[in-house]
């Protein structure tokens, strides 16, 4: 078949590794703080980068439930891995943030002030399709409705997104099941597909916005041919065929909500640590808690907002104690919110299939297995 995938725009371009470095340079020159994947602490994490040299060339990883390990690839690919422990939420929806502080004055009056948002504009390099969907979900939750989170809005506004189409899938990925990847569709300024094969190491670049086109105009590139688009399309299809996990989402909301008393919840509760790792690594989880602090004299006070988790007891603490005292009720809350009640609340699934929940669970609980177990042994509570 010689016709290129109709998904890839015919006016796409090619850049090489020097071009990618030039892109990072051009974004920095525009005043962006560039964040991209880089090696750190035994994993591929997201951190500030100043040049393409800091990308994890030739590295990949193996992922399975509760296990992540870096590994060498046989080539020098810059994006030859899936997603790691960090997600972009750490930058857009700050893990710990002071909301305001207040000062009591000698005359007894009180003044309060909020901190200005950080004077940063981010450019993200290497945003995968699942994570782009996750950003879309957080946009809807945090700034899409009547009550906008000004802190998220300040960080999110103007983020320049260089997406990357996955050329390999991780052992816990299931974006194909969630219909969120591996090919990015919208929401980016530029989208890259790495073409690496023998001597060849280039990137097919698609443009998703006028500012994306403007930046691209400032770096060395050449027009892509149909054969390049074909190769790019095949590379992503290969990733799609490598999904480490799959999830049957047919009627998933009814399946879960009709099986709230299924014995599988007890089974998973015996394994779950209620440590909260899954909610923290999940790129769509948005819950926070606030704590107030004063100095000793109670002359100054501040309110701190931090990522919270439905796995903590405080999360559901009402008068008299925690409403979800058992691990079972907390695990069930999280899975049913993500996969079922999220539809009612926000119109989509809360899961994008990135697999972080599976990989970064210290005891390797695999939600795809849990849902499959409920499905195969469904007993519909009232049925």
């Amino acid at each position, binding site marked *: 078949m010689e016709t290129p995938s109709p998904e890839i725009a015919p006016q796409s371009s090619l850049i090489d590794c020097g071009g990618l470095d030039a892109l990072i340079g051009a974004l920095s020159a525009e005043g962006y703080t560039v964040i991209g994947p880089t090696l750190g602490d035994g994993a591929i994490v997201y951190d500030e980068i100043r040049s393409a040299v800091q990308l994890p060339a030739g590295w990949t990883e193996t992922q399975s439930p509760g*296990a992540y390990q870096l590994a060498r690839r046989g080539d020098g690919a810059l994006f030859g891995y899936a997603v790691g422990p960090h997600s972009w939420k750490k930058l857009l929806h700050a893990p710990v943030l002071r909301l305001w502080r207040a000062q009591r004055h000698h005359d007894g009056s009180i003044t309060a002030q909020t901190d200005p948002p950080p004077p940063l504009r981010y450019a993200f390099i290497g945003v995968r399709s699942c994570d782009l969907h996750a950003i879309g979900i957080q946009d809807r939750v945090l700034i899409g409705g009547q009550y906008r989170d000004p802190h998220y809005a300040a960080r999110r506004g103007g983020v320049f997104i260089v997406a990357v189409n996955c050329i390999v899938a991780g052992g816990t990925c299931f974006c194909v099941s969630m219909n969120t990847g591996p090919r990015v569709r919208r929401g980016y300024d530029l989208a890259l597909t790495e073409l690496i094969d023998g001597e060849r190491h280039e990137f097919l670049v698609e443009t998703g916005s006028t500012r994306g086109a403007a930046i691209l105009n400032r770096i060395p590139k050449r027009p892509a041919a149909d054969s390049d688009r074909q190769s790019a399309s095949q590379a992503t299809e290969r990733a799609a065929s490598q999904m480490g996990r799959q999830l049957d989402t047919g009627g998933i909301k009814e399946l879960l909500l009709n099986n709230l008393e299924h014995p599988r919840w007890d089974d998973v509760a*015996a394994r779950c*640590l209620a*440590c909260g790792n899954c909610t923290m690594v999940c790129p769509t989880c948005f819950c926070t808690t606030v704590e107030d602090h004063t100095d000793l004299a*109670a002359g100054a006070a501040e309110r701190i907002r931090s990522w919270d988790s439905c796995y903590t007891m405080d999360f559901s603490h009402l008068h008299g104690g925690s409403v979800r005292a058992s691990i079972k009720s907390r695990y069930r809350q999280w899975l049913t919110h993500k996969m079922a009640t999220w539809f009612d609340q926000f119109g989509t699934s809360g899961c994008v299939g990135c697999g972080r929940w599976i990989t970064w669970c210290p005891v390797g609980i695999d939600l795809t297995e849990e849902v499959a177990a409920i499905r195969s042994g469904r007993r519909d509570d009232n049925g």
Partner: protein
Amino acid sequence: MPRSRRAKLAVWKFTSCDGCQLSLLDCEDELLELAREVRIANFLEATRAQLKGPYDLSLVEGSITTPADAERIRDIRRRSRALVTIGACATSGGIQALRNFKNVPEFIAAVYAKPQYISTLSTSTAIADHVPVDFELRGCPIDKRQLLEVIGAFINGRKPSIPAHSVCIACKRSGTVCVMVAKKIPCLGPITHDGCGGICPAYGRGCYGCYGPAETVNAASLANAWHAAGASKAQMHRALRSFNANAGEFRAAAEKLDEDD
């Protein structure tokens, strides 16, 4: 606004290493403010001056290991409006609670030339096992910011903001890559109370459990994960039998591992 009356603060020591009360002196930047806001009524590491009770806030360090300790803590409780225990010794019995699982007379006979001079209990126990406690601040040693938070809360009549969730939450908030998942290093973090902010994992080590059991503990499941990471039951047992060996859930978890053997 200046206070009409400064709270009287007392610091008491039982069986302990003094590390926790020294955290108070370690608050170098806040010491002057502290001295402005409270009257130090009893704090032998800082001053020989001792004021009579009653005390608005007593900070109690150390565990109960002698009959005399058991008497003295009742007296201190009677003279204290609020009593807060600080550190693993005072909240669970400390490392010295390892004696709870052994034969103490045998130790005494092995160590002391004249065992008859030694008057000690066969256990090391938490202050809360002897008197009512208003708040327990965890850690071996405690964290000085948490200590200031607790003192500030008590002298201002508010609730201390000291979350009881796992160390994992602290790791994730700070972006630390999980050592258990990425390096197969056995870690107690998932069942350990936060407080340190996840220092050890940030330096590539597993959590040692200094802050004792988190609000929810599933030690049996963690033991399986340790096993998968190549750690034996004996290693997990040893990890649980440290500064917080006598804390309810850690103690029960170690006993369960004994049974399984």
